[in-house]
């Protein structure tokens, strides 16, 4: 009888303790519930992607004659050059410009191969001679080659030069006129 009362008391104390504990824990959890708020603003500035040609100038040596290319944003088109003797050359200088706010890199560059078309009886010999002696060069103004993965960071420019020259170290000229096509360059830039 006494034992049963004691057990009941223990149980009651335990239950109270547990309840107290649960209530205590519940009270502790309730106090740690907080609503988190983040407030503020976001501006989506429209990114500016713009790669273009700029600032075209031309120089010549010897008796070379030229028509400078037409400058549009992404094209330099329809230049023409006439050379008459070894050492004659024309150099076009211009800038590659990244006027946007996104860094760019050169993914691919394709430089054309000269195709020579002769005239008259010695056309074949003339074509071979001119194609062996025409120099078609495209590089940075400091002399370094332009290669894939070159960077063109936002708000920067790079100076480049395009040169067409008749080899100064030859003593041979074609007998007739020779037209040279294929003097084109294509560059694909993408985001870095």
């Amino acid at each position, binding site marked *: 009888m006494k034992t049963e009362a004691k057990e009941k008391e223990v149980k009651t104390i335990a239950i109270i303790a547990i309840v107290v504990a649960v209530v205590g824990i519940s009270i502790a959890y309730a106090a740690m519930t907080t609503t988190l708020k983040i407030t503020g603003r976001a501006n989506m500035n429209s990114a500016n992607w713009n790669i273009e040609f700029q600032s075209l100038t031309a120089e010549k040596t010897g008796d070379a004659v030229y028509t400078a290319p037409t400058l549009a944003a992404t*094209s*330099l088109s329809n230049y023409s050059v006439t050379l008459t003797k070894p050492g004659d050359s024309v150099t076009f200088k211009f800038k590659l410009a990244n006027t946007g706010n996104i860094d760019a890199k050169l*993914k691919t560059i394709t430089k054309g191969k000269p195709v020579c078309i002769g005239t008259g009886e010695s056309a074949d010999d003339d074509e071979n001679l001119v194609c062996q002696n025409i120099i078609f060069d495209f590089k940075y103004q400091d002399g370094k080659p332009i290669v894939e993965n070159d960077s063109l960071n936002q708000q920067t420019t790079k100076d480049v030069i395009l040169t067409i020259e008749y080899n100064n170290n030859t003593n041979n000229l074609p007998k007739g006129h020779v*037209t040279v096509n294929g003097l*084109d*360059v294509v560059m694909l830039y993408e985001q870095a």
Partner: protein
Amino acid sequence: MEKNRGVKVVAVIALIVAVVGLTIAYASLSVTLNITGSAKVTPANWDVEFENPAVDEESKIGGADGTAPTLEGKTTLKDFQITLTKPGDSITFTFDVVNKGDIKAKLSTLTMPEVSALTYEGTALEAQKTTDENTVKENIEYKLTDESGSEITDGGTLVLDTDSNQRKKMKLTMTYKSTAQSIPSAAVNISGLDISMIFEQAD
């Protein structure tokens, strides 16, 4: 402290989501730059040639005589003849070298055989023949000069332009030395007096 860390974790996650969203929007940007054009080679005219070969009659000294070279094509003066008889005899041929082309030219190489390298053919009898040949070899001299008498040299110092200064008058003079103490007993023919001038494009 715990509360702040929880706020920070949520804030960072939100920012990451926003950045990932922006990056996906940029991935498609690219541009192609094109350069196009052509060239033409129209050969300039290269033409350097001889003109006006002649004997300078006023230059004849003593018994010297001769026949001016003949012009073969534009680039060869051939078959001149010179006769000298005694010490001091001298004769001069004149001719012009002219640049008639569109490209400036320079004399890059001049080849004139040494007197000792010429061929001497004496006409005396065998014993005297060699002596005569040697006598002539020791006492003959020739030179190539400009109009003022300065010797022509190669290496690019003589330049012919395409407008003014296109023409250079030259003189070829052959002399039996006035200081010679002997003459051959019979005629000695001299051959091999071949001079070549190579002109190249000047800078």
